[in-house]
């Protein structure tokens, strides 16, 4: 196998693709991914119920606060719970799941550099998470916008459609950010649940943190990227993170930087990882 640059890199790219394909084949099936599909599908259920209710006139609503409602549910429920726990299920399984099933050694015995293995697995998790959650976000958004068409002011529907790509972008970035964090946690901790709860608590407490600490969290960047500022009042105020959201390019680069750093750290740590399946 000649070592000159191009063929080596092309072979490694083929290996990344092979790893991703194997992971998707294993985890993308209905039986294995059921938990993720339920989480994603819940959001759609909320909005479907809402549009049916409003169609039968059970609740009054006009265009503007529907969009605000979508933004509210998207930020409160979808990002913080559905995508969060979805990424926990998918990305913890990539390494900690394999250790518990005692099948990680098959990967370490393949002629694949361990860094390539981490990138391959991360990509497969990202593809699955992004596909499922982006589809769910889009589907529920369609239901919401379609319901808007019934309302008098047509103008709203066109601006609404404009916001969809932003929502999809935020969803994919959320999957990338949370995915990287849980990939690392899955690799480091024998019992990753406590660190996961730690991240959950950290993410919801950053409202009270000084601006510098706010930078080390995924939700901070995602909030500022959401197209509709959520006018929270009363108890929901807890969720509005910062009065002045940072500009889009800072937010996007922040998430990507955080993700890249975490994946790089995982790639370094994996080299020293040993196969010792202790008994439960």
């Amino acid at each position: 196998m000649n070592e000159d640059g191009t063929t080596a890199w092309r072979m490694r790219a083929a290996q990344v693709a092979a790893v991703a394909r194997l992971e998707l084949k294993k985890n993308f099936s209905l039986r294995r991914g059921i938990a993720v599909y339920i989480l994603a599908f819940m959001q759609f259920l909320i909005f479907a119920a809402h549009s049916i209710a409003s169609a039968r006139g059970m609740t009054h609503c006009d265009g503007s606060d529907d969009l605000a409602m979508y933004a509210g549910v998207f930020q409160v429920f979808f990002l913080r719970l559905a995508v969060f726990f979805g990424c926990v299920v998918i990305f913890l399984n990539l390494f900690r799941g394999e250790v518990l099933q005692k099948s990680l050694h098959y990967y370490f015995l393949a002629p694949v550099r361990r860094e390539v293995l981490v990138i391959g697995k991360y990509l497969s998790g990202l593809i699955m998470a992004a596909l499922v959650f982006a589809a769910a976000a889009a589907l529920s958004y369609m239901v919401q916008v379609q319901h808007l068409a019934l309302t008098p002011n047509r103008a709203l529907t066109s601006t609404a459609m404009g916001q969809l790509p932003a929502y999809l972008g935020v969803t994919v970035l959320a999957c990338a950010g949370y995915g990287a964090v849980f990939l690392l946690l899955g690799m480091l901790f024998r019992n990753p649940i406590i660190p996961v709860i730690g991240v959950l608590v950290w993410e919801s407490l950053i409202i009270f943190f000084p601006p510098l600490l706010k930078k080390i969290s995924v939700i901070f960047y995602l909030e500022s990227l959401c197209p509709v500022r959520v006018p929270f009042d009363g108890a929901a105020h807890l969720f509005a993170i910062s009065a002045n959201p940072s500009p889009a390019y800072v937010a996007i680069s922040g998430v990507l930087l955080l993700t890249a750093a975490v994946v790089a750290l995982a790639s370094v740590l994996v080299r020293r990882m040993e196969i010792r399946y202790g008994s439960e």
Partner: protein
Amino acid sequence: MSAEDRIVFEDVSKFYGDVLGVNQVRVSIPPGITTLVGPNGSGKTTLMNLMTGLVQPSRGSIRVLGIPPSDPERLFSVLGYCTQFDSFPRGLTGYEFIYYSLRLHGMGAGRADELTARALERVSMSEAAHRRVASYSKGMRQRIKLAQAIAHQPAVLVLDEPLNGLDPMARSEAIALFRSLAAEGSYLVISSHILHEVDRISDQVVMLSNGYVVAEGQIQAVRGEMHQEHPLQILVRCNRPGALAGKLFAEDHVCDVRMHHDRRGLVVATRAPEVFYKLLGELVLEGAIDLESVAPADDDAHSVYEYLIGSGGAQ
């Protein structure tokens, strides 16, 4: 035999915390079948995991045909490891399990499919290949693991108790397969507890006890080196054991003769077996005794194991 074409352990030690894995191992493995023998927990699996990079040594260096275990790309294109873990990536069929691990080599779909089919053929699992691995019996799972290890036609094969759970026919087929691979010049490192099979298949043996290498080399040669402390015992059954015993005491290389409890056989301990066999042959030809059977009692792997490691061994 330069280091380039041997598997070399230089002063390798491995500790899990302060639990001893292996200690100061100096071994150089030539082509052919080398069996690792030793009680549970004596370090056989640790040696294999060190050789394949699943664990890093605490001290010392390892080279497999000159390749360090920390370089997976070069190592695993020439090495296949069939571990003892009876576990599989969930949800895959036997065929998929082998096919996808070949694709990890960066192989194209066609080549991977062809090699998978050939590997399945070699372990005669072709018809059950498309059922899920979870529905296989223990022996069938073992065959699939074996097929996965040999699928990419590696030069070095590391097998941790490969015959564990296989039925007698599968065992003899597997042994025939190992012999044919060894004949083609491959390196086979096999750990096994079934010592009469170790006798049949191994070219050389590495005996381990409590993490130390206690013996290395050809079984007969190892036995030969032990003639001083453990002279070779031979059981001879014939019609006049008393007369034979009388003659044998005259020989200087014979150091002990015991009457077997059924008074039909003699157990002779001698330091020079060849001289004894020649003498026995002449006695039979002269008609001095009617020989019923002659068999060395302790020159197989089992006796060497008993003498070096003892029945206690690691509990």
